[in-house]
């Protein structure tokens, strides 16, 4: 693990380090034989099943709820509205999640709808029955009398004078309106040689984990405790909100993540169901289970959805950026369940790896009668990247400059690193790009993709009537969101090494990577390390899985905790073996004399540190062979990447085929290259979905139009080329293991790179692409518009000549 180990002369090792090698994942064994343990696999005795009755209209008051027919269905145990839950709710309204202030406010959702619904899919009634089949039968018999109200479907309409309110309690559909920026933009534009302008429509859909959400709540009527399992990326925050909303002592609540069948941001929220169902379990004194079905996921799990950008870019005579300004309208949906981040992430990300002297973006967060919006893998970064890269391509086309040359002139050179952006993070911390070589990353991607010879290949193809194109995009990604993630390393008397963390595994190989880190400090094989992630009984503090943070934060905490355990083990072993500490090494689960046979097992050391009544305790150490570290960080560490996409466009069918895809990533020190590559490729394919396929449709009345995977298209195996991924390693200087985040990075540049490539392929037609996803319909319209414009221009020309 490079410098970190060299810095510590005491630590010696017999073999190569585990960190940095592609060991096979310790997660995989159970998963390939069907022994994973996902939410719906949890078997709780005497459990009852819940179906959720959801709003069928986008905006209405609830005049009445008639549950009599539903109650008469055989096997129904209870039908519960918000009023029914009130006796066990300290507050009917959800607290704001992941917020320093917390508490409910007039934008947070209700645990169940009160007297108004504000989007299709909003939970209104719980039906509790003997089986999920019966619960769904009965749910169909719950009669809700909705009195329709005017709907804001397009968030821009809600900004117009006289627009209806998204909720009756509002006096304004604008949740927030602020300027992000710095420098003298007016002067920059006044001094510009060229100004380009465009309007961009950016849509990002859902996280679409193949396993949906789900909750199991098990109350213990004897001691008043409550055990909750949830398929969530934020178990500690769910714990906090259960304690607050249900008014329970925190010693009585435990939240556990089972195996998660993906997350992608969808599960990075505390949802109404996650409070309503535990509340119902307490009320009824019965264990309850709710497993979301796919349609529910489409109408009630968070989405990123729509952003409307109006942008101008000013450049000098050499095409160096002088300033960027514009406006972003962000669709927030009906509620704000946790602090808004997407548009601000997008606004900051737009700057990317480029030198931008002046910047002013007005960010308007607008409410609409649709599913609430919160972060999906990428969290606004893809939109910021798309905006910047599309504007750069527009400059290149207008000025007749090669797109790479234009980027090269504007990239932050390696000599300027670390580079301080004149902007601040939400935490108030300065944005400092800590390390990386952006021009070199771009150069490596271009080299791998053979950019240099593409024009010849393109001309050849065009001569044969085929439209091929190449595109590029660069990103910088802030990663490792703090303030910390918890890490406990514990050795038991059996010798078992366990790790407890508030980090959450959604498929990233977290357990393997943390085990590798521990392995290097304690000399036990990674597959002998047990990782318990996302259980508030083992990790009472923590934040969970989001923002490409876990290897930076949990990795650092676990690394330091393992080092502390190693130091303690070494100290005690030194006394027992009567050998100086620097003559000891960790090997095969023991601390042994270097070059000698004397050793003591970690289990034995743990037994000694457990103590025994009436017997001497090892001098100078605290009991227990364990350590907990909550490594604190204020700053993000900045990863970067360059992607090159090569496409072919069928101009008749308006189909885009990906011919080749090259990704070069710098995420600092790589703990497990196999896993890291898997993260990048998975991320890219999510980005391809956003670029070409995924569109969460709504009509003007706020009715969702795409509520199955047959209508909302995820990329499939036949849509994709083989991805060429490579890594550069600029170790982070901001954490003890030199790592930077990677989970979202693959997704971020994809839509920009593909749009660039498609536009390049269609350059003979003069097509400009300003939207995502580039569906066949969108492409058809763009090609038709370009042909019409060309025709008009030709006619005008003819007219003028006449």
């Amino acid at each position, binding site marked *: 693990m490079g410098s970190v180990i060299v810095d510590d002369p005491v630590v010696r090792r017999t073999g190569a380090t585990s960190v940095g090698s592609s060991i096979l994942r310790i997660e995989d064994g159970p998963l390939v034989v069907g022994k994973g343990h996902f939410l719906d696999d949890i078997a709780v005795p005497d459990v009852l099943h819940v179906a959720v009755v959801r709003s069928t209209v986008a905006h209405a008051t609830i005049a009445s709820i008639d549950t009599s027919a539903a109650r008469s269905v055989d096997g129904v145990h209870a039908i519960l509205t918000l009023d029914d839950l009130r006796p066990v709710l300290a507050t009917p309204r959800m607290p704001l999640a992941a917020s320093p202030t917390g508490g409910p406010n007039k934008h947070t959702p209700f645990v169940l709808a009160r007297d108004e619904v504000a989007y299709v899919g909003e939970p209104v009634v719980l039906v509790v029955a003997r089986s999920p089949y019966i619960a769904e039968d009965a749910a169909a018999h719950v009669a809700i009398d909705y009195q329709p109200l005017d709907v804001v479907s397009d968030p821009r309409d809600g900004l117009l004078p006289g627009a209806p309110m998204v909720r009756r309690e509002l006096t304004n559909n604008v949740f927030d309106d602020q300027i992000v920026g710095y420098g003298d933009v007016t002067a920059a534009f006044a001094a510009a040689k060229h100004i380009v302008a465009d309007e961009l429509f950016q849509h990002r859909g859902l996280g679409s984990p193949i396993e949906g959400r789900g909750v199991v709540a098990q109350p213990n009527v004897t001691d008043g405790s409550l055990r909750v399992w949830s398929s969530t990326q934020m178990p500690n925050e769910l714990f906090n909100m259960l304690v607050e909303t249900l008014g329970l002592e925190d010693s009585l609540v435990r939240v556990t993540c089972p195996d998660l069948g993906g997350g992608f941001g969808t599960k990075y929220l505390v949802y109404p169901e996650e409070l309503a169902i535990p509340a119902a379990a307490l009320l009824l004194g019965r264990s309850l289970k709710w497993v979301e079905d796919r349609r529910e996921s489409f109408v009630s799990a968070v989405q990123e959805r729509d952003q409307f950008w109006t942008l101008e870019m000013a450049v000098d005579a050499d095409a160096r950026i002088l300033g960027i300004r514009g406006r972003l309208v962000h669709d927030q949906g009906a509620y704000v369940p946790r602090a808004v981040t997407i548009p601000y992430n997008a606004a900051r990300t737009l700057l990317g790896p480029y030198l931008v002297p002046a910047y002013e973006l007005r960010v308007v967060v607008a409410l609409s009668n649709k599913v609430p919006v919160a972060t999906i893998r990428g969290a606004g970064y893809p939109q910021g990247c798309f905006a910047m890269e599309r504007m750069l391509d527009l400059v290149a086309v207008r000025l007749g400059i090669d797109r790479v040359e234009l980027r090269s002139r504007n990239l932050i050179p390696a000599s300027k690193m670390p580079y301080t952006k004149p902007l601040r993070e939400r935490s108030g911390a300065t944005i400092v790009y800590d390390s990386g070589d952006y021009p070199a990353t771009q150069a490596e991607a271009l080299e791998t993709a053979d950019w240099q010879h593409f024009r010849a290949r393109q001309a050849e193809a065009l001569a044969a009537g085929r439209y091929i194109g190449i595109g590029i995009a660069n990103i910088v990604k802030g990663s490792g969101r703090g303030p910390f993630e918890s890490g406990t390393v514990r050795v038991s008397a059996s010798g078992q090494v366990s790790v407890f963390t508030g980090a959450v595994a959604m498929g990233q190989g977290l357990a393997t990577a943390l085990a590798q880190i521990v392995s290097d400090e304690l000399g036990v094989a990674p597959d002998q390390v047990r990782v318990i992630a996302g259980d508030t009984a083992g990790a009472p503090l923590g934040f969970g899985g989001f923002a490409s943070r876990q290897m930076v934060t949990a990795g650092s905490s676990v690394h330091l905790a393992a080092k502390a355990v190693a130091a303690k083990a070494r100290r005690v072993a030194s006394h027992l073996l009567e050998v100086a500490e620097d003559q000891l090494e960790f090997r095969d689960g023991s601390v042994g004399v270097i070059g000698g046979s004397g050793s003591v097992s970690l289990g034995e050391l743990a037994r000694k540190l457990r103590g025994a009544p009436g017997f001497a305790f090892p001098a100078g150490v605290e009991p227990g062979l364990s350590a907990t570290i909550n490594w604190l960080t204020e700053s993000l560490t900045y990863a970067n990447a360059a992607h090159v996409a090569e496409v072919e466009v069928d101009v008749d069918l308006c189909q885009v085929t990906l011919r080749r895809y090259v990704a070069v990533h710098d995420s600092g020190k790589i703990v497990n290259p196999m896993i890291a590559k898997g993260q990048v490729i998975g991320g890219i*394919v999510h980005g391809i979905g956003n670029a070409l396929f995924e569109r969460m449709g709504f009509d003007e009345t706020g009715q969702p139009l795409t509520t199955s995977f047959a209508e909302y298209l995820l990329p*499939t195996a036949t849509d994709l080329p083989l991805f060429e991924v490579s890594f550069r390693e600029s170790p982070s200087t901001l954490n003890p293991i030199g790592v930077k985040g990677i989970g979202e990075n693959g997704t971020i540049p994809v839509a920009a790179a593909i749009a660039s490539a498609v536009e390049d392929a269609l350059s003979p037609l003069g097509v400009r692409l300003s939207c995502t996803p580039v569906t066949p319909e969108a492409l058809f319209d763009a090609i038709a518009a370009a042909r019409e414009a060309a025709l008009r221009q030709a006619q005008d020309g003819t007219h003028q000549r006449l």
Partner: protein
Amino acid sequence: MTPVEITLDVNGVARTCVVEPRLTLADCLRHELGLTGTHLGCENGVCGACTVLVDGASVRSCLMLAVQAQSARVQTVEGVAGASGRLHPLQEAFRRNHGLQCGYCTPGMLMTALELLAENPTPTEADVRVAISGNLCRCTGYQGIVASILDAAAELHEHMGTRPWDP
């Protein structure tokens, strides 16, 4: 609805259960027979996570009723490894080639791949992609899965006749 008794062969074992006629095969396997390795991703036949083999052919167990499996031979992910617990070469290949991340789609992928390899022991990359094109994976971007299946095919083919995989 009057419950119906059905008998089916699941992973080589005769199983009997009493089910409502409307119970899906997936729910029967998962909740009546305790075989929770078969996962549900969409319950309308699009995602492929619930794929099992019925009389050797891949089936969306969310779209088939348990009563339709009367007397059928059903294979699920739990029956892929040998009784001794030794992994099938396909399972080994998934581990070796990072063919899974969260593991939720994996059982359906494995069962789909087993059907492919039974029909076509030497598939091309394109064959594999077509075969799994009805199985959605949100984590891997499919590349590791394709590599896993090709690797397993090569492994199985190499030892065909000389060292057949034998649980």
